[in-house]
């Protein structure tokens, strides 16, 4: 084994520098994407936006599950917390209309607080036991949201909260269509760019965290908690930090969800959603940021693609629809998970051993 190995793990950054043309093409493609999609219908822009939200969620859950190795089946609760924080602070429900840039950090903080609240009692649990407690936590949050409509009406119960403010920056209202440079920017298109910017920030934070003292401590806890403690890592703090960080991303995604939809109710935050986010992380590749993004995109686009193809295909071949798209979706999900776990237990794009490049005897930084 040679000592000089090309840096692979520290994340694409060095690789990007070597391929300016490729990077430029990817950036251009991402910028042009909403206009291409709009040609197929605004619905596809909305679908893409939701997919990006799920990428954000998966990256948050990846911190807890992928980095720190703590199985969390109630992650959607933090999404719910972020969504409700936004809804309560920017809707006629309480008559409060704060700007989105003020609410999103609050949503992240409140979600982080809930992360610690969930983490604290589960510190000594792991594996199956942790999964059961987190599953219960997710349900508790949803049921609370459902029942906090009376006697004091906080969440408006199962009716949900309506007429939530869209994102506005100055005079730029994300619910309206504007035109710049002779191009029409519809609401979903504007949200697409905002979400894309957030995604870049979140990916950056994730990469930085993973290749840091904190990220290594998370991975140490995942690999062997007793050894981690013997290395002087305060496992209590480091696990709570993972819960809080992961939850805060969920909180931000939830706030964006509220703003985009304009309406939320407890029904959006059911257990299946938690399971779905976890499936994205596991299918893509726990612990590998790029794998998780791949998993989230695949599982987000599968249902709408099926919805648009299953019925016409069946009608073409059989003259009528035999199997509902929803049924086929679940069939494909289950089948895909079984196949991936059977043949690629680390996920489609599994985490690799991070190799660092260093030369001579000095060591030296790699970034």
């Amino acid at each position, binding site marked *: 084994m040679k000592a000089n190995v090309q840096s692979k793990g520290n994340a694409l950054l060095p690789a990007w520098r070597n391929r300016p043309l490729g990077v430029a093409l990817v950036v251009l493609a991402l910028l042009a994407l909403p206009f291409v999609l709009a040609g197929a219908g605004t619905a596809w822009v909305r679908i893409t936006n939701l997919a990006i939200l799920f990428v954000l969620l998966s990256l948050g859950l990846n911190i807890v599950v992928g980095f720190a190795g703590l199985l969390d089946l109630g992650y959607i609760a933090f999404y719910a917390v972020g969504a409700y924080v936004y809804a309560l602070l920017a809707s006629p429900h309480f008559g409060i209309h704060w700007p989105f840039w003020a609410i999103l950090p609050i949503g992240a903080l409140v979600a982080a607080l809930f992360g610690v609240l969930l983490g604290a009692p589960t510190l000594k649990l792991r594996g199956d036991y942790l999964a059961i407690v987190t599953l219960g936590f997710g349900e508790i949050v949803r049921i609370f949201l459902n029942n906090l409509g009376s006697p004091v009406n906080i969440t408006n119960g199962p009716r949900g909260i309506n007429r939530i403010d869209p994102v506005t920056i100055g005079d730029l209202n994300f619910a309206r269509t504007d035109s710049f440079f002779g191009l029409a920017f519809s609401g979903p298109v504007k949200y697409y760019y905002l979400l894309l910017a957030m995604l870049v920030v979140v990916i950056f934070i994730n990469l930085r965290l993973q290749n*840091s003292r904190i990220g290594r401590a998370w991975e140490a806890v995942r690999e062997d908690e007793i050894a981690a403690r013997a290395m002087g890592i305060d496992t209590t703090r480091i696990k709570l930090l993972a819960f809080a960080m992961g939850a805060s991303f969920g909180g931000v995604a939830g706030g964006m969800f509220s703003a985009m939809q304009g309406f939320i109710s407890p029904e959006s935050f059911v257990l299946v959603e938690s399971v779905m986010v976890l499936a994205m992380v596991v299918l893509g590749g726990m612990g590998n940021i790029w794998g998780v993004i791949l998993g989230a995109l695949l599982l987000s686009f599968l249902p709408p693609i099926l919805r648009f193809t299953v019925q016409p295909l069946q009608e073409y071949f059989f003259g009528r629809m035999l199997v509902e798209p929803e049924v086929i979706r679940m069939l494909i999900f289950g089948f895909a998970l079984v196949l991936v776990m059977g043949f690629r237990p680390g996920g489609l794009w599994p985490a690799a051993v991070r190799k660092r490049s260093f030369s001579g005897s000095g060591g030296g930084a790699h970034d």
Partner: protein
Amino acid sequence: MTELLSCRSVSKAFGGIQALSDIGFSIHEGEIYGLIGPNGAGKTTLFNVLTGIYTPDRGSIVFEGTQLAGLKPNLIVRRGIARTFQNIRLFPNLSALENVMIGRHVRTKAGVLGAIFRNSATRDEEADIEARALSLLEFVGLRERANQAAGNLAYGDQRRLEIARAMATEPRLLALDEPAAGMNASETQSLRALLGDVRARGITLLLIEHDVRLVMGVCDRLLVLDHGEKIAEGAPVAIQNDPRVIEAYLGAPAAA
């Protein structure tokens, strides 16, 4: 010689089993101190009590003037006691280099904000972590394996990596739980040389070991446990001829 660690009447019971009763001993600075005894004598329990994995029921453990009994493991590491494990506990999916870098955790500071913004203090700290980890890998002879997954290393290399990782915490006392277990003769020989090198760096060593030749050859003093009790302490030669030790290992001579 100054006392580095001193234990007074340390006891630990699990249910009805007295794993340690009234153990007292002290380790001097700069020596290699051996801990031996038949299987089930309480050696690993004593290790776990010293390193904070178990809390002793009674007794005091004083390390460089401060009381350790009841401290959490991470605080004990901070005070300067590092350990390895009998059944190797590396971070198998991380590279050898990262394993050692994790050992630097306790001596470094960067938090979440430092990680995200990677300011100059954090960059310097990261460079220092990597440089020290590399030099420790060099020290145990694993420099060429830096980028390999720890779990894929040869058995003897894994044991050496555990030592490098423990040394990264800058211990004053390094506690090794059966470092030669499963090693062949030549690996044991080079381990012995390594232990000498570690000591030469000013690190005091506490050693649990079954390999009698290694123990007798390398240790300055020995503590012998049997059924949770201290039955002898002293220089290897004296221990070898101690009738209680012989009895513990070979059984009592048949009644005449």
